[in-house]
């Protein structure tokens, strides 16, 4: 049982920004009493973000303002905003819950999320800043057919955004039910409406500053929690680990890798998706256009890596400290988890926690900081969802207005006013769609969606992007073949995997006398097949392409390469 629920957490955690799964959030959630301090603090956050939006709206006129906050965000600010996109409710609640339940395995996940950043820095951050304008599709199709490659990049962006958004909305609804005691549909509608207001009126400026505000709140709150928790052990990690091992039902096993990563193929496949998926997420890549030049793009990755790494170390401390500190609070546990003397039963420490392991960080906030701090942390968790959803929606709207409308349908002849209007309409429609899907997927198992979003990002967005930057001989046909093959194989393999074939479509088998859900294939993440397939098709189709256009595209690589390396001619660059 425990193993199955861990697998749920594992799948949900495939994305840093996704909301939680695990027993509490993937199933029905008991509604809690309304948590007033949390509601008040959340209202303060909403008022603050609406003022930011009002301020941002008065400086959002051009398309550049709308998509990239005018290009005037500094490297430090962008680093905070990027880390905000990453330090999601999933990282905060999901990883602390995972560490609480299985110890060291949680650290393995944190590391997977972090190591994508150096790759982004070394291979694509300044390159896309130098080549692109508003979206990563600008870079993918720099020297290729605007119609075909841009359409493909926009479609795979929208696929990533759509799956992400559904998972977010469902997670948001359930989490907010737990934290605030609001009805599921009210939570989903609140998130949808606020996100639409931020993006429609304040564009990227509002989205970025909401994300920065939240990142600062979350980092401060988590720092305080880790500090307060460590002080209970006189700041000795060894003392904390020793007590945790004594209390935890799995004992010493929590100090070493456990059951999460076992067979090498799945381990590598997951590693590939985590590492390169990050480098193909449209809402993350879009942030590199908000800084003035390649130098600031570089700095933003450096700061982001620092903040995210620091945050994951805090999560590790919080998760381990919670094992010891929550056991001292029987009121956090279900009645059946307690012994006659009122103490928490050892084997009930994980299963008996009221609200499930996703509530570990929230309960620890209450244990170390009382009601007020509990309210603060709950409000920050809600704010986290809002900020992430807003960034995703903006990325989706840009794929529609900048890529599909302005460059494919209007073939670059649209005017800026129309393009902005289209993007606002797109935001409105995406918002309504997100609310509708969020409500209709309430009782569905959405854990696979974030894994799928990451797999598509790695196997369709990243492969085409990185090859178009570095490989001279690539052609439109090659890009199209590789992108389509990557997208389709990632989707098909996910459907055949256990998360969809077994858990969603209900195919089961008898294993050792128990009925368990199974996939048609044993692979949990498609990246190890879909990524190489995509690269292979880019390579072979480009090499076989001898059309006159292909010749021109190869010649055009020179100019692209010079701009990519020097930044001469880049959007908004200071060069002349």
């Amino acid at each position: 049982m425990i193993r199955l629920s861990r697998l749920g957490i594992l799948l949900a955690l495939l994305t840093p920004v996704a909301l939680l799964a695990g027993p509490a959030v993937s199933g029905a959630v008991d509604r809690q009493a309304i948590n007033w301090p949390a509601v008040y603090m959340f209202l303060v956050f909403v008022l603050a973000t609406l003022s930011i939006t009002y301020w941002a709206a008065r400086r959002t006129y051009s398309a550049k303002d709308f998509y990239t906050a005018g290009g005037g965000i500094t490297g430090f600010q962008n680093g905070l905003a990027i880390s905000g996109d990453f330090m999601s409710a999933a990282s905060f609640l999901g990883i602390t819950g995972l560490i609480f339940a299985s110890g060291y395995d949680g650290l393995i996940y944190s590391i997977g999320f972090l190591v994508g950043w150096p790759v982004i820095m070394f291979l694509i951050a300044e390159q896309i800043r130098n080549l692109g304008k508003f979206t990563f599709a600008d870079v993918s199709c720099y020297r290729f057919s605007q119609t075909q490659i841009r359409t493909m990049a926009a479609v795979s962006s929208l696929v990533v955004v759509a799956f992400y958004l559904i998972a977010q909305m469902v997670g948001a609804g359930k989490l907010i039910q737990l934290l605030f005691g609001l009805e599921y549909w009210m939570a989903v509608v609140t998130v949808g409406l606020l996100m639409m207001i931020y993006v429609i009126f304040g564009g990227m400026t509002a989205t970025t500053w909401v994300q920065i505000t939240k990142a600062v709140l979350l980092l401060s709150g988590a720092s305080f929690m880790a500090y307060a928790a460590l002080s209970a052990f006189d700041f000795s990690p060894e003392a904390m680990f020793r007590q945790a091992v004594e209390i935890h039902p799995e004992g010493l096993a929590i100090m070493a890798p456990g059951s999460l990563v076992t067979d090498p193929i799945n381990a590598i496949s997951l590693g590939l998706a985590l590492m390169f998926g990050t480098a193909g997420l449209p809402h993350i890549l879009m942030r590199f256009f908000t800084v003035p030049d390649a130098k600031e793009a570089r700095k933003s990755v450096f700061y982001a890596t620092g903040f995210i790494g620091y945050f994951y170390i805090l999560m590790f401390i919080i998760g381990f400290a919670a094992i010891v500190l929550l056991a001292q609070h029987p009121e956090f546990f279900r009645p059946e988890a307690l012994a006659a003397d009122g103490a928490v039963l050892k084997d009930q420490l994980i299963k008996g926690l009221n609200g499930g392991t996703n509530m570990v960080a929230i309960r620890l906030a209450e244990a170390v900081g009382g009601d007020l701090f509990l309210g603060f942390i709950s409000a920050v968790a809600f704010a986290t969802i809002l900020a992430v959803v807003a960034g995703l929606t903006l990325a989706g709207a840009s794929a529609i207005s900048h890529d599909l409308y302005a460059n494919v349908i209007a073939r670059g002849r649209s005017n800026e006013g129309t393009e902005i209007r289209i993007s606002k309409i797109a935001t409105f429609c995406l918002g309504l769609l997100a609310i509708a899907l969020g409500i209709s997927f309430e009782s569905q198992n959405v854990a696979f969606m974030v894994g799928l979003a990451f797999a598509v990002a790695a196997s369709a967005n990243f492969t085409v992007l990185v090859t178009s930057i570095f490989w001279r001989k690539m052609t439109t046909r090659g890009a199209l073949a590789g992108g389509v093959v990557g997208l389709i194989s990632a989707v098909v393999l996910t459907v055949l995997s256990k998360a969809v074939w077994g858990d969603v479509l209900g195919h089961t088998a008898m294993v050792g006398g128990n009925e368990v859900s199974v996939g048609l294939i044993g692979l949990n993440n498609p990246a190890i097949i879909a990524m190489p397939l995509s690269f292979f098709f880019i390579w072979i189709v480009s090499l076989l392409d001898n059309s006159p256009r292909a010749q021109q595209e190869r010649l055009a690589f020179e100019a692209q390469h010079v701009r990519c390396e020097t930044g001469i001619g880049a959007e908004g660059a200071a060069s002349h």
Partner: protein
Amino acid sequence: MQQDSVDAIKAQPQYQKLVRSRRRFAWTLTALILIIYFGFILTIAFVPTVLGTPVAPGAVTTIGIPIGVLIIVSAFVLTGVFVFRANGRFDALTRAIQEDLE
């Protein structure tokens, strides 16, 4: 960009030096982080007990914990090394190329 200025830039020794040294540097660091990360993942997949060794006799803390923290720190340090080199040497070369063009 005009084709003749592309050709002019390509012909500059500084440009060739920039492209060569940055490419070598970026791919070396990429290889390094890949080795670190997949080394870690494969250790977990094949010999998980290694990471469960105590840091000292009688200690509860296992070497997996400092190793995990070190990987997080190394990701940060590697990005820092790249920024340092890029903001110094690579940007100086880029500026020289731009000035030459004028």
